[in-house]
């Protein structure tokens, strides 16, 4: 038993000290009816070598980005991660500590989270960030719940763009299902631009609207113009919630805070976290300062110790479940800290110029690929809206196009019909710095075939 160090002699010595005759004696108070049926019918344990081989074999049954060319986005992005990121988060002082309840011996985690909160504020242009939540989808759900805490009870209509990530919309619906005061309504997207239909939004807004939720960029990769939405929301006192699943875009785009978003949330995976089948990564959550006491999740704040030295602590805990119980702002007590740390290291390494450079390469390659797929490979453009690194194309036979690419070990995109029956011939393609020009050309040649 390689993870339990007790020898038989150890066990005997300890049992004697406790005054128990046997290990069974330790839990003699557990009802016999339960004990007698508790054996676990799983095979015997494996050696480390056997485990490694078993897992290698399972891994080999998957198609990974190490072997195939991926042009997949849709909320999870294939980006380069400098080696220093994994080296840092692999340090056991970070990975095997827990929530920093004892700040004197958790300054490493606490300072890193304070830096994370600052970086998220800088990236989003917002005033306050929490220490992260589970994922982009739960961040949106928590944002809507936060709007519900802030807005008066007569404002309970949530308008959510149909161009927002379909899984995020689904999670919001799940979270709101049992809160009977809230109504969820969809805002359609404009079939020409791929952006949220602002004219329709204006018609849907009224004085009962609690908040408007929109992707930035949206699920189709289209960069929404938040300015007219902000203006429309102001007219009726609705909050604007901006949702970004590709935060690398914010290195170039006008940040949600500059548009006056009340809450800016999103998925942080792009910032130095492996794709890992979509999890774990983290949801980022930022808002205007005036809402800070309504924010869900962990917050790290600066303070001083007895001798006036700067230090960091978990703060404003009176919002949280372990103090407030049923009156807490949220039930969440996880901050995905290790993933947020990865993002902190990633952003520190790339820095101001590096993050911008990588973002520019994404823009350049994605626009190049889209132009070539249209001009050389019989794909047609679906939307006209501006985009960052992913875009929607149409093809007469999407399954055939995908099958053709598979023979060349290329995954060319995500078919949209599953979520958008109104877009049957369409697929979403993403191009990042991980797709060199020759790979893009191979994609174009294969699709053209």
């Amino acid at each position, binding site marked *: 038993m*390689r*993870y339990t160090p007790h020898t038989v002699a*150890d066990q005997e010595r*300890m*049992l004697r000290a*406790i*005054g128990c005759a046997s*290990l069974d004696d*330790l839990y003699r108070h557990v*009802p016999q009816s*339960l004990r007698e049926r*508790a054996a676990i019918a*799983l095979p015997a*344990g494996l050696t480390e070598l056997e*485990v490694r081989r078993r897992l290698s074999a399972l*891994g080999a049954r998957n*198609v990974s980005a190490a072997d195939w060319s991926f042009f997949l986005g849709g909320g999870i992005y294939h980006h380069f991660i400098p080696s220093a990121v994994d080296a840092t988060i692999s340090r056991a*002082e970070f*990975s*095997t*500590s827990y929530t920093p*309840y004892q*700040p004197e*011996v958790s300054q*490493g985690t606490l300072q890193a989270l*304070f*830096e994370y*909160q*600052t*970086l998220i504020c800088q990236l989003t242009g917002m005033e*306050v960030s929490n220490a992260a939540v*589970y994922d982009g*989808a739960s961040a949106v759900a928590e944002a809507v719940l936060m709007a519900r805490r802030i807005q008066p009870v007569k404002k309970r209509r949530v308008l959510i763009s149909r161009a927002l990530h379909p899984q995020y919309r689904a999670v919001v619906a799940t979270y709101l299902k*049992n*809160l009977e005061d809230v109504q969820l309504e969809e805002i359609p997207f404009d079939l020409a631009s791929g952006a949220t239909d602002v004219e329709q939004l204006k018609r849907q807004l009224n004085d009962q609207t609690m908040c408007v939720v929109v992707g930035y960029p949206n699920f189709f990769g289209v960069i929404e113009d938040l300015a007219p939405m902000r203006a429309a929301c102001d007219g009726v006192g609705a909050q604007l919630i901006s949702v970004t699943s590709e935060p690398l875009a914010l290195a*170039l*785009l006008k940040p949600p805070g500059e548009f006056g978003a009340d809450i800016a949330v999103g998925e942080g995976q792009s910032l130095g976290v*492996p794709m890992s*089948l*979509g*999890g774990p990564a983290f949801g980022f959550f930022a808002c205007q*300062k005036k809402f*800070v006491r309504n924010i869900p999740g962990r917050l790290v704040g*600066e303070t001083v110790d*007895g*001798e006036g*030295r700067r230090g960091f602590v978990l703060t404003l*805990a009176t919002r949280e479940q372990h103090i*407030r119980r049923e009156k807490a702002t949220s039930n*969440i007590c*996880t901050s995905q*800290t*290790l993933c947020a740390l990865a993002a902190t290291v990633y*952003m*520190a390494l*790339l820095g*101001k110029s590096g993050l911008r*450079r990588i973002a*520019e390469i994404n823009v*350049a390659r994605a626009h190049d690929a889209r132009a070539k797929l249209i001009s050389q490979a019989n794909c047609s453009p679906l939307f006209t809206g501006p985009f960052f690194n992913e875009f929607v194309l149409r093809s007469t036979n999407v399954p055939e196009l995908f099958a053709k690419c598979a023979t060349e070990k290329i995954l060319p995109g995500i078919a949209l019909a599953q979520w958008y029956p109104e877009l049957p011939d369409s697929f979403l393609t993403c191009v990042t710095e991980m797709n060199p020009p020759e790979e893009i050309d191979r994609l174009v040649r294969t699709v053209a075939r």
Partner: protein
Amino acid sequence: MSELSQDKKRSMVAPPKLLFESGSAGRSAVDWPAEGGKVEDSIPAHLLRQDGISDFPELGELEVLRHFTGLSQRNFSIESQFYPLGSCTMKYNPKINEAVARFPGFAQLHPMAAPEYLQGALALLFELEQMLAEISGMEHVSLQPSAGAQGELTGLMLIRAYLAERGDPRKNIIVPDTAHGTNPASSTLCGYDVIQISSNDKGVIDAAAVEKVMDADVAAIMITNPNTLGLFETNIEAIAQVVHAKGGMVYLDGANLNALMGIAKPGHMGVDVLHMNLHKTFSTPHGGGGPGAGPVGVKAQLRDYLPVPRIVKSGENFVLDENCPKSVGRVRSFLGNFGVLLRAYTYILSLGGDGLENASRMALLNANYIRTKLEKSYQLAYNQPCMHECILTDRIQHKNGVSTLDIAKRLLDYGYHPPTIYFPLVVSGALMIEPTETETPETLDGFCDAMLAIAQEAKDDPELVKSAPHSTPVSRLDEARAARKPVLRWEASPAKAGSDD
């Protein structure tokens, strides 16, 4: 060592700067060449930033690494210190789990790839569901929830959906006063009101106490077993009967499953739905507060309500089923915290059924050993055998003005992470100690010696304990100040520094 020289030792090390206080304009740790045209040619100017991100870091690679290595050295962690944080199960996190999670065949998978390209991952998840069902005695498992609290919310949603379909979702959830704060918080989020009940003088719930509040408005009871006092809820079967008799359901908070493997299965206790914290019982790293995973297990009658997507075996292949009309829906994006699930799977394979049972038995042995060694110097909350954790109090030390917080801070000087303190709330000055099974008896002896020395110090020199810690990089921090005028981010100009009035 005198106070003075300890203070000097502490101040010799320069406090670390923030990322934003180091570096130099133009510095970066990446050197990708520029390519393509101007961004303005692709994206309209009114959607672009005017300048770069102001005050963003500008550092070199070694600079960044030294910064974070320095920060890491200001943390306690399982691999550097004994970390007996109660109800958190800070067991060893095996290295093989980390190695496996980094295999390209797992780390470089995209969740939007068609299932045909993910057969190994789906097979693994399908098998993990079955393993967890076997360990817990439940019939079906969903791996979707991201953490224990999300598992709770999901479990309550299942109950609500099931009852609603029968005509009445009901109004209330019964929660014992010893429960984790997430239980009442999740209940509220699921649209329920909370009825709190008290445990008896033995620290467990009586069926009669449940019977008194159980009626046709109660949807479920949430019960933690072993409870947060480290005690097995011996009446749980009778409690389940009371609740079931009036049409309610039994939710089990599986936070403390590490005490039960091979010893008792929740599925046999009358539990209808539970969640499991894989970052506790199944050894995945806590990561400074996440990521975790909180799968839910259910009995057959709740299966159809489980969140989507469901992993379904179809012939030799695995597919994802999103078309489940009775499902509560999606609780998060994609397929759960796969990297965490993968580590838990690796752990279960490594230990096997017998190894898991052994783990629980050694966890009980270690906890009871600590209880026995400390029960004369610290007042026990409840004087009876514990499961995987034991609860001490500061009642004896309080006579000398020394509190649980002081004891916890003094432990830092001895090089041990303190237990969970002031929880559960029903115990005044609680010290909740969970050693886990991966610690040697020598480590436990060392920890107990420190606790006994502190008990002695509390008598002989209470000020020494009350002014602890003396050896950490910072002394006690002013938490009231942090909350009164929150500074939640660095800002370039102190004039702009965030305050919330």
